[in-house]
């Protein structure tokens, strides 16, 4: 049952990052590459039409995590208190940026909300990457100082940063040079994903230019991926053990590298959806590989005193999980149906679609 819920929740979060990921990416592209008002409008619209139905995946994922792994939920949400609340604020700025830009016609008003959308999308991508970095790096569970826990073993509190900015120090913060690298990888990945989304859903005048941008960003991403694999060995020498012990897990990195390699051919794609498909693989592979590398651990411990959090020592009781698996499956089927209906009715380019009036 624990594994069932772990997989289901991982799927929900992966879908969230794929769907809302293109909104973040669209925001990043919007911030740096959209110059003409017409492009700005249509690019903002390609995220604005969808962000709220994408964000509900986060709400659903959070709720399921709360139900199935309450100890993990409690520990991680209170331990990452500041970054999580900051993420909430950023999602608010992202949302109001998208909702308000088209409400009044004058340019200054639009510029304000464009910046709100763009900057918060960029920071959200960065923070979500940093979060993933924190999960694979692990935290000082129990707040151990000089070999003694100051909290219960499954609680911790992370400052935003430690003055050394090193993942190897005794009390690493949320932001260190390792998690920053993962954060930048997330920004680049989602920028590529967002660019692919814009190409798929709009007729903006920068679509051709975006293909070149995707190609260049992909080179950056390939270099960063190699770099992260090397530094990961320094942070956690056992990071690849899971893939050696359970070779079938290699399927996840293969998904990632398929996406990475595929995107080098971006200029030759005949169908506009292909690029989006490959960047979807990139996100899916990236998240699942990271989770698989530490499974069944879900939060490693950086000290030798307290046990890491696993899906087994943080889960709810068996009866609750079994009952929930019944409604969980029904719920997922319903969600899939809504999703298909919605995507079919809103398929195609959105340039002409009426929005906000």
């Amino acid at each position, binding site marked *: 049952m624990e594994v069932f819920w772990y997989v289901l929740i991982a799927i929900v979060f992966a879908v969230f990052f794929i769907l809302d990921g293109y909104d973040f990416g669209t925001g990043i592209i919007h911030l740096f590459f959209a110059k003409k008002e017409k492009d700005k409008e249509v690019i903002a619209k390609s995220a604005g*039409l*969808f962000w*709220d*139905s994408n*964000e*509900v995946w986060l*709400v*659903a994922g*959070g*709720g*399921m995590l*709360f*139900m*199935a*792994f*309450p*100890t993990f*939920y*409690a*520990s*991680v*949400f*209170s*331990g990452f*208190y*500041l970054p*999580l*609340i900051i993420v*909430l*604020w950023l*999602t*608010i700025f992202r*949302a*109001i940026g998208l*909702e*308000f830009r088209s*409400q009044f016609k004058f340019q200054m008003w639009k510029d304000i909300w464009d910046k709100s959308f763009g900057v918060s999308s960029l920071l959200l991508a960065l923070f979500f990457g940093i979060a993933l970095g924190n999960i694979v790096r692990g935290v000082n569970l129990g*707040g151990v100082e000089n070999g003694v826990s100051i*909290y219960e073993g499954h*609680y*911790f*509190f992370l400052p935003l940063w430690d003055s050394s900015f090193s993942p190897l120090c005794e009390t690493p913060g949320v932001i260190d040079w390792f998690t920053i690298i993962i954060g930048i990888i997330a920004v680049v990945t989602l920028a590529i994903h967002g660019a692919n989304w814009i190409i798929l859903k709009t007729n903006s005048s920068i679509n051709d230019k975006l293909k070149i941008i995707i190609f260049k960003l992909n080179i950056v991403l390939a270099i960063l991926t190699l770099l992260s694999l090397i530094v990961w060995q320094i942070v956690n020498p056992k990071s690849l053990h899971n893939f050696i012990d359970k070779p079938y897990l290699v399927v996840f990195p293969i998904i990632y590298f398929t996406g990475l390699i595929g995107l080098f051919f971006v200029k030759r794609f005949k169908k506009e959806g292909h690029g989006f498909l490959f960047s979807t693989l990139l996100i899916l592979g990236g998240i699942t590989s990271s989770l698989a590398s530490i499974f069944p651990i879900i939060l490693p411990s950086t000290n030798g005193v307290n046990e890491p959090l696993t899906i087994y020592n943080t889960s*709810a*009781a068996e*009866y*609750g999980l079994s*009952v929930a698996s019944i*409604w*969980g499956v029904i*719920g*997922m089927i*319903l*969600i899939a149906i*809504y*999703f298909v*209906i*919605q995507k079919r*009715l*809103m398929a195609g380019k959105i340039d002409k679609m*009426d929005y906000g009036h």
Partner: protein
Amino acid sequence: MEDMIFYDRLQFAFTITFHYIFPQLTMGLSLLIVYFKWKFLRTKIEKYNNAAKFFMKIFAVNFTMGVVTGIPMEFQFGTNWAKFSELTGGIIGQTLAMEGMFSFFLESSFLALFIFGEKLMGQKLHFLTGFLVFLGSWASGYLILATNAWMQHPVGYEILDNGKFVLENFSALFSNPWLLPAFLHNQLASLVTSSFVVASIGAFYVLRNKQVEYGKLFLKNGVIFGLVSSVLLAFPTGDWNAKNVARHQPATFAAMEGIFETEKAGSEIVLIGQPNMVEKKLDNKIAVPNILSFLTYQEWDKQIPGMDQFEKEELPTNIPALYYSYHIMVGLGTIFIGIMGLALFFLWRKKLFTMKPLLWTIMFLVPFPYIANITGWYVAELGRQPYLVYGLLKTSEGVSPTVSSGNTLFTLLGFVALYMLLGLLFLVLVGKAINEGPTPKTH
């Protein structure tokens, strides 16, 4: 430690109060939208369709606000109330996760289709999408009320040696005797807010002599729905909830009614008075003898335990706030019945649309159902103190053990600033929609 609990509670209270401005409108309004759309299907009169689309615009703004202020609510269970989440997540996580799965997806998917898809799918399907939005928003209310009902009156659980609450009976969460009356009361209250908003916009149009056709339509329907829901709110649902509190939370009942001393021959009902916590009595009291005993137990001389019968630790922590919240809610509810009753009378006599004083009153009445809704929730939440899970888990035992008060104050201040901005933008947007009105623009 005291600081920490205070800031955690203040942040939750502030963010939930602000959040609940939005769902209380959307839940009731979705029903009215479905009603207008249904009238259009039956009569084919275009103005009903325009009314439905106009209110869906208002709905959408409120829904956006509800989403962005709602996620912080879910997150705060983990961030600020980690110990509570750890101990009870196996139970309330069920209903909260179901809310995400069964209501948010429904609501958000079909809201987009309702707004963008009318031409694509034809009128019957368009009605169906509106109905599904309504279903989603009411399912959301139901599951949140199921969560709250469990905290007010825990059922279907077992407590392990390590203090964790474990679910023992899933269906008990839904057959909880606290749930149905609380849910009905809450949904009717939401319908009151939305009917009053509809009537208020109608009064505005009629008074301004602008969009008058819609103004009259909104006034008529707002007044009818407003009166029916206000009456049902007081009786039977309000009465039913009060009896539940008297039965299951007697200390709370004594505090909210302001009964300091037990009266042997039946309790009086307090209409006005200020709790004096030093002398343990009500100052400037106006009360009617024996009515409370009759209303609660249908016996004039039934003895109701006053606050003197309970240990200090069992009583709610802020008795005056609880007492005022309760009396404001009940007082406003009574006034609503009066004003809407009067309005319906003049509507029937065909004089309402020319009665300026009454129209002004209806227009300016709009903040008060919001206040009544929110004070109603304060009654539930202050009344449950000092517990998170009534009788079993104290509020002080639920806070996050690692988050310092300095950090909570920092985020509280951030929320206050951000929500001020949000509130301002919300008013601008709703004002703009009302100003544009329901008449379709001719291009």
